[in-house]
């Protein structure tokens, strides 16, 4: 733990961490200092002047909180009249040319200008001259739409492209009333993290063309979850809403702070994976090309298992730890071979050393933990004399060429227990719908061996059964997530000291040693 220092805020003594600036230090104990340009990931810039605070008996007596370190005995003034006047005047300055088009602005409802206006300003504009008109709806590329009129020139987006992505596409050109955030002519935003500027922008100057006008921010339910676009396991908010007479639909993903995993940002591809949760979903059971209910499909699968001479269970690297445990237990009981073959989920050379990883599956690290074999050889050996392959949400068409898949399906029947329509669902003898990760809960282990958990976010009007339920209906013995967790803690050495029922929000780092011991 960092050292603590004692200081006074408005005469009240508080104990804060030393070495941090005043915004972060005092913010950690629940006292907010208003700020627009400062962002913990981008550092202090000091251009907005909104965070000016008074220091009693200090020289200088007024300092920007974002650039001032918390020090012992400091007497910070936040509610003095001269500080209030500064906050009020800064807000008035920011709003001089602001178009106040909140009715058509996607940021409305989560906008710093709106919040601070209500808190620190609250007066009518005194401007009598015409506001400066600027360009609106500029396409900055990568799905970012810029509105220069709404911009307050805090330069968060500019600093993001310079410091984080190091691509530097954005800059502020000209000065005073002519100052604009802009791209260089003919060189739009072209990095894989560009949409983070939409979240970074404290106002509505940067909006996402994908989310544009889809929903108002206050309608959205913000459920914490984990992105399953790759093996990084970035923390996200799933913003979803059930409109009247409609189903619960996801409208966007936003990054959620986790210092140990992804920091403040997520990549654009991961952000767009929400579409797979909404569209092209398998919703009914399919038995030999005909749509049926779940129970008929389960019945057909049970019959296939009992008739089969040899069955292979194909686990997906996107299954949660609990699901894998349930499938593994079921495989042992049913005498089936187990494989985690899923080479198609890996895109060699796609990783960029920051957040994006080669492996586009969320939980491959759990294979090692549970001793599930994922190699091509192992799979070939297992299916060589098999006449039934049950895929647990493993999209085999990603890993096998079409000819190979067809050759495999000639000698063996396929049961696809999955979330999405596609090649597997259409070629399967039986397809069973299950809940996808946004509708399910479980634990994941990311590529850096951090174990994280996510909870149910979306509840559909007609919820699909989750995978563990389906496995149980097929004859598995694990009754639910709770039982799976108890079994995991008992049987897996690396999880002996881990309480899977109480995983902290930032996850648990499983040390490499423990995991490699288990795998060996």
């Amino acid at each position, binding site marked *: 733990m960092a050292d603590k220092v004692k200081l006074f805020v408005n005469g009240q003594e508080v104990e804060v961490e030393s070495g941090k600036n005043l915004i972060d230090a005092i913010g950690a104990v629940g006292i907010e200092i208003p700020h627009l340009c400062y962002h913990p990931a981008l550092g202090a810039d000091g251009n907005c002047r909104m965070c000016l605070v008074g220091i009693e008996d200090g020289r200088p007596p007024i300092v920007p909180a974002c650039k001032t370190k918390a020090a012992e005995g400091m007497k910070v003034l936040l509610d003095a009249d001269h500080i209030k006047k500064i906050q009020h005047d800064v807000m008035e300055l920011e709003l001089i040319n602001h178009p106040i*088009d*909140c*009715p*058509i602005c996607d940021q*409305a409802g989560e906008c710093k200008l709106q919040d601070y206006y209500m808190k620190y300003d609250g007066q009518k504009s005194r401007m009598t001259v015409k506001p400066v008109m600027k360009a*609106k*709806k500029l396409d900055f590329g990568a799905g970012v739409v810029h509105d220069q009129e709404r911009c307050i020139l805090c330069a968060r987006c500019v600093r993001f492209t310079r410091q984080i992505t190091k691509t530097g596409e954005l800059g502020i050109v000209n000065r005073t009333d002519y100052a604009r955030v802009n791209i260089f002519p003919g060189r739009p935003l072209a990095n894989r993290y560009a949409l983070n500027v939409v979240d970074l922008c404290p106002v509505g100057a940067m909006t996402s063309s994908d989310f*544009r*006008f*889809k929903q*108002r921010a*206050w*309608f959205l339910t913000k459920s914490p979850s984990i992105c399953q676009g790759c093996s990084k396991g970035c923390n996200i908010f799933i913003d979803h809403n059930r*409109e*009247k*007479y409609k189903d619960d639909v996801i409208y966007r993903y936003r990054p959620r702070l986790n210092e140990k995993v992804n920091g403040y940002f997520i990549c654009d591809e991961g952000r767009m994976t929400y579409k797979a949760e909404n569209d092209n979903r398998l919703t009914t059971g399919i038995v030999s090309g005909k749509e049926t209910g779940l129970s008929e499909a389960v019945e057909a699968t049970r019959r296939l298992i009992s008739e089969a001479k040899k069955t292979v269970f194909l686990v997906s690297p996107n299954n949660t730890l609990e699901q894998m445990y349930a499938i593994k237990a079921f495989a042992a009981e049913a005498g089936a071979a187990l494989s985690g073959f899923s080479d198609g989920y890996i895109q060699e050379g796609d990783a960029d050393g920051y957040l994006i990883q080669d492996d586009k599956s969320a939980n491959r690290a759990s294979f090692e933990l549970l001793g599930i074999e994922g190699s091509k050889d192992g799979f070939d050996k297992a299916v060589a004399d098999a006449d039934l392959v049950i895929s647990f949400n493993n999209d085999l068409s990603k890993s096998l060429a079409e000819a190979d898949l067809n050759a495999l399906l000639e000698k063996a029947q396929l049961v696809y227990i999955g979330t999405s329509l596609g090649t597997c669902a259409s070629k399967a003898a039986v397809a069973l719908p299950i809940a996808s990760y946004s509708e399910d809960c479980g634990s994941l282990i990311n590529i850096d061996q951090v174990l994280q958990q996510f909870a149910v976010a979306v509840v559909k009007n007609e919820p699909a059964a989750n995978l563990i339920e389906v496995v149980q209906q097929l004859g598995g013995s694990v009754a639910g997530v709770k039982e799976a967790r108890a079994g995991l803690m008992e049987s897996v050495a690396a999880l002996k000291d881990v309480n899977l029922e109480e995983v902290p929000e930032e996850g648990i780092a499983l040390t490499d040693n423990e995991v490699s011991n288990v795998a060996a």
Partner: protein
Amino acid sequence: MSGKVKIMERRGKDLYERVYLIEVFKGMATTFGHFLRNFLDNSKLLVRHYPEQKPEITARWRGRHRLTKHEDGSMKCVACFMCQTNCPAKCIMIEAGERTDGRTEKMPVRFDIDLLECIYCGYCVEACPMDAIRMDTGIFSVTGNERESFVMKLEDLLATPGAFSEEEYKKGGA
């Protein structure tokens, strides 16, 4: 709630009233008295000939909704969802889209008001920042044969004109 309590004496106990027929005839006398008077001269009727004779509606009356337009005919609504947010009956359903008529950026592509669910409270009118929705059509009776016909679409709402002049409407307190 401490009001003055007046205890009414229960009638119908004495013999005169218990004979019953006398009271019946007294009642019928009143009825036939009205009937004869109205039959001979109906200019002094105490009730309105409703379907033929419509009541006079004031500008403040909250009738069926309409969406207003700018002078050039483009709709004022910018799909800000304030009315939908404010609606206590949740009867307004909006879908927003890109604006195509050259004004600003946003407009509704779908704007449904379910009149069977609407409670005519007028909160939508109060919430609107653009004066785009009003309840000044003077329509107080909406009839239909199936439920779907009570869902007012964007076109229906735009097509209905206001029943009052701007001055009258403003005088009404808007």
